[in-house]
């Protein structure tokens, strides 16, 4: 009886302690997930909701702007994530065994653009790339290259956004890789050195395999971050020219807050949610394994 009481009390304490966090979690995340799934099956006109089954999803896949948004998002994810991982490994493997001041300078220089945010960086790049009075078009003209409108040309706009996003966010991957590489046991290198391995071989055969869990982590968080790419699109191109640079998040936002197509927007949300959940499985496994 007494033991039961104590157990009950401990149970109650546990629930009380997690309650504030869980109420917010249920209200602002779990409930919206289910509500979003429900809304995606409805046609919503202000207060009036009509059940339409999977119509919103069917409409989506026959909408060329949605198809374009999906393709662009995939292109962004593939290129930005690949560039981020490769450049992150390259920078970190070059500097991780150098003196602390130098490492901290490199880390800082690449991380500062992350700190000042995509909003500010997009504004600067918008100015730098401005066809009328931007520095970059001026430089390309001076170099004798034909005048190009970097953000107004449908073939150039994707590479430009890939570059801007990559250049702004790679600092995070660099910080993480440097930390991971500093943590690789030194005796591994020494053994390889005694065997006469070159630095390139050490990096490829010891360093990169040793930081593989970090590569998985960086890949996943960057895929998810690029999946919801929005700021740079809204501030640099507005999805243009002629929807050439629209993305899933931008499409969702426009449908929800400009065209008042809440059912359609919810369907896009459900698709994006499913993708993020699937992507996070490997990471979750490693978190839960540790417990």
């Amino acid at each position, binding site marked *: 009886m007494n033991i039961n009481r104590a157990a009950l009390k401990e149970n109650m304490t546990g629930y009380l302690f997690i309650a*504030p966090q869980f109420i917010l*979690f249920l209200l602002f995340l779990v409930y919206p997930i289910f509500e979003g799934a429900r809304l995606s099956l409805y046609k919503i006109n202000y207060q009036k909701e009509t059940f339409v089954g999977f119509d919103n999803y069917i409409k989506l896949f026959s909408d060329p702007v949605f198809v374009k948004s999906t393709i662009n998002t995939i292109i962004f994810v593939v290129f930005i994530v690949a560039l981020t991982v490769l450049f992150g490994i390259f920078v970190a493997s070059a500097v991780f065994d150098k003196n602390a001041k130098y490492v901290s300078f490199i880390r800082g220089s690449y991380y500062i653009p992350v*700190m000042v945010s995509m*909003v500010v*960086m997009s504004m600067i790049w918008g*100015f730098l790339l401005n066809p009328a009075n931007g520095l970059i078009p001026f430089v390309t003209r001076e170099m004798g290259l034909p005048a190009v409108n970097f953000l107004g040309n449908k073939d150039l706009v994707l590479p430009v956004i890939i570059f801007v996003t990559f250049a702004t966010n790679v600092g995070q991957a660099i910080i993480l890789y440097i930390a*991971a590489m500093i943590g690789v046991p030194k005796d591994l290198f020494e053994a390889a050195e005694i065997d006469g391995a070159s630095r390139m071989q050490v990096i490829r055969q010891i360093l990169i395999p040793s930081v593989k869990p970090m590569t998985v982590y960086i890949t996943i968080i960057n895929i998810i971050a690029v999946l919801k790419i929005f700021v740079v699109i809204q501030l640099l191109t507005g999805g243009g020219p002629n929807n050439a640079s629209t993305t899933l998040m931008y499409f969702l936002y426009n449908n929800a807050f400009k065209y008042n197509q809440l059912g359609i927007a919810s369907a896009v949300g459900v698709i994006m949610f499913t993708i993020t959940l699937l992507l996070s499985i490997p990471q979750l496994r490693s*978190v839960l394994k540790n417990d």
Partner: protein
Amino acid sequence: MFGRKDKIKKEPFDIASNIFVTFFAVLSLFPLYWLFTSSLKNSSDVVKMPPDWFPKTITLSNYIEVFNSQPALRWTYNSLVVSLVSTVALIVVSCLAAYAFSKLKFKGKNVLFIIFISSLMVPKEVVIVPLFRIIQDLGMVNTLNGMIWPNVATAFGVFLLKGFFDSIPDSLRESAKMDGASELKVLYQIMLPIVKPGIGALFILNFVQVWNDYLWQLVVGQQNEVKTLMVGVATLMQDLNPNFAYKMAGATVAAIPMLIIFVLFQNYFTRGLSMGAVKE
């Protein structure tokens, strides 16, 4: 062994890569240099081609214009309140929850933890439509509260802090309980001082994250007066004012607080980011 350095040996490849890495490190700071110097130029110098690589005459008029023609102080205040309240609230609720998940025994603990932590990577943007409707129903559109509370639903705090609580031996709690301390007292007086580094890292990371967040704040704060700094400054981009120096001054105002935080807390970022990453 004398003179043995814990380094891989120097090679031309290594030297070349470091020159390359340093060059790009400096280059990646150039846009910010251009931002600051442009914001100090007058409206004609800023678009002059060829440009002045260093501003010839320095003027603060763009900053004055930003603060006069826009409620930029109000935006800064809004950003500060949203970031600070979100972060402090997250620390309080996630300390309680992380402590419970780590040290207390209750039915369904593991299942609840798995459900909760599964949401770790799900960004709130994917549920923005239903989330916005909830905020509407709560009457929180155009309020800072509407921007704040959805941020506190994240599992990130528990994820980061639980590891710190796990590393504290149970005996510490048990002996305090033996002396009659309540659970809250144990958490507050014994555990918190030990998990302080984790709380510090969580504070910095989350503060910056919320400060730089954009989409949710854009959607909730539609009136000019309730905009946050990021959202407000971004509207300058669409502003009819053709003066680029004015826009760049706005962007600089948005950038400066984060630069200061970075300079002051660089080590927290390095450690905090890695804490949030994989544990071997």
